[in-house]
């Protein structure tokens, strides 16, 4: 573990903004919320935030993205891959969001070999930050994502006048090359461990059982339609919970023609299983027509289906879905705890 003076960390970020060809983005205040956005200077960086509106997923899998363009000349179609391979330097990522990106890596890189994702991801640098503030709805400690040991290039912890820096990758190490750092003392290493340990007390919300039990619990709850319908009655089916989720990765692909019909582009955009048309297929058949089916699907997917396919529980406990749900029915912690209680009643 290294230690860097606060002013040297600022200087490092200024240096990256000035000289790195990639866009440097970080957490900053935006009205009453925090967002990841382009940094004009290190001063804009706010590292003591609780939760950002969207996760940094948007830098590796943008809300909207052109995948290819096409042109017709005579009877030949010429297609060109257009997805932007440019990475970002992302500063201030909380551990649960790092866990979410590691999870997406498994899906998009290891499994789907999705080039638009892979290139952006591999060209990006993630600088994590130990949580200093916990959002009301966050239950990352329960999901084991309040702290992480991997998924970052650098991980910084605020120690006051200095930051402890844990080097996660060779690329992270190289970033520090021209910056003044020293090795951490035993006390400083101890202090980081204490901060991480104390963090657990900061969470108001807690899953009442180990998340490893989720797949079994959900499998047993699949047919409990009374439970799901009860929730769905209040659900607006607006898809907000999907859109703000750091691990939701579903998308739709649209062919967008130019007026002449001979050229155009293929675009993908985030889609979500709560939206009515998400499961509509050819001939208009919708295999999750009822809100209750869609509502259930989201919870099943986070806690069971994804586990079956990729070995992860797909909820990192960030609490964004809870925070943004105007109908207040999206909280995984509450839903899972209620299911568990019902099953043990």
């Amino acid at each position, binding site marked *: 573990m290294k230690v860097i003076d606060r002013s040297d960390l600022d200087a490092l970020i200024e240096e990256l903004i000035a000289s790195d060809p990639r866009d440097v983005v970080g957490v900053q205040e*935006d009205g009453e*919320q925090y967002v990841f956005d382009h940094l004009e200077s290190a001063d804009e960086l706010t590292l003591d935030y609780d939760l950002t509106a969207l996760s940094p997923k948007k830098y590796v899998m943008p809300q909207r993205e052109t995948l290819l363009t096409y042109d017709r000349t005579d009877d030949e179609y010429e297609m060109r891959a257009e997805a932007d391979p440019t990475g970002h330097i992302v500063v201030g990522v909380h551990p649960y969001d790092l866990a979410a990106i590691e999870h997406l890596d498994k899906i998009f890189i290891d499994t789907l070999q999705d080039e638009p994702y892979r290139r952006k991801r591999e060209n990006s640098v993630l600088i994590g930050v130990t949580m200093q503030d916990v959002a009301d709805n966050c239950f990352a400690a329960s999901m084991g994502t309040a702290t992480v040991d991997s998924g970052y290039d650098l991980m910084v912890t605020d120690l006051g006048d200095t930051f402890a820096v844990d080097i996660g990758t060779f690329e992270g190490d190289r970033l520090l090359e021209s910056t003044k750092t020293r090795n951490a003392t035993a006390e400083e290493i101890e202090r980081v461990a204490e901060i991480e340990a104390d963090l657990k007390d900061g969470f108001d919300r807690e899953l009442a059982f180990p998340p490893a039990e989720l797949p079994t619990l959900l499998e047993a709850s699949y047919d409990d339609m009374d439970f799901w319908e009860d929730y769905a009655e*209040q659900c*607006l089916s607006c*898809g*907000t919970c999907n*859109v703000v989720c750091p691990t939701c990765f579903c998308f739709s692909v649209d062919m967008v023609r130019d*007026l002449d019909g001979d050229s155009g582009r293929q675009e993908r955009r985030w889609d979500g299983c709560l939206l009515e048309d998400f499961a509509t297929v050819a001939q208009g058949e919708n295999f999750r027509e009822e*809100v209750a089916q869609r509502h259930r699907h989201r919870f099943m997917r986070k806690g069971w289906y994804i586990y079956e396919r990729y070995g992860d529980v797909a909820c990192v406990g960030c609490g964004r879905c809870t925070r943004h749900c105007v109908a207040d029915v999206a909280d995984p912690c509450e839903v899972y705890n209620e299911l568990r209680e019902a099953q043990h009643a």
Partner: protein
Amino acid sequence: MSDASAPSVSDGRRPRVAFFDFTGCEGDQLQVINLEDRLLDLVEVVEVVSFREAMTEHGDDYEIAFVEGGVATAHDERRLTRIRENADIVVALGSCAAFAGINALRNDQEFETVKERVYGEDSDSITSYPIARPIDDVIEVDYEIPGCPIDREEFVGAVTALVNGAEPSIPNYPVCVECKFEENTCAFERGETCLGPITRGGCSATCVSAGTHCWGCRGMVDDPNEGAYTDVLEDHGLTTEEIIEEYQLYWNWQRDSRAVADGGNR
């Protein structure tokens, strides 16, 4: 949807297109004119034979009719019927044509009072129907481009689809989706109310992005959970009267139609 079809650009002939205005502000046609440079691209693929707001010529030989505005008079009905007879494809342009929009605000009010308020002493000479209606209450409509005003890109997208022999489509996800894409602070969090959660998206949440809230101008999504949404508004302190007022601006006709389908409960 009918089995409507128009000659497409691939036939080597540009489809003939006409624009018509009924009761409305003509703001949707203005959006078409506001395409400016792109209008030139547009007339490469269609031949405009009638567009009162933009040209003096008028022809009755057309395949595609874009109709703006709602139906207010018997004359409107006759004129619309003729348009339907002439056109292979009828597209409702804007919220008044698609679902009566703001015009339907008066549907719950006493008609004589409405007339007097708008026309004063001349109100006796007004021969309007007491109820404002969308055009599909009179004729069969093939496609709708909602919005107040319409989104220019959505209009170009619809023309692109039609001239290439495809079906124009509009999103069925609510405004919230694109609003979250934009990372706007939720209007509810700002202490306002917002119709975004059950309003049809496709507008890039333009009103919320500009600092206000969604007024519902694109109409409701296909299957809105209106009951749950009413609860949300109540939780945010709105009275029944205030909630009805929120819904009335654009949705009066849509809500009545839904209520009829539900057996009268609304």
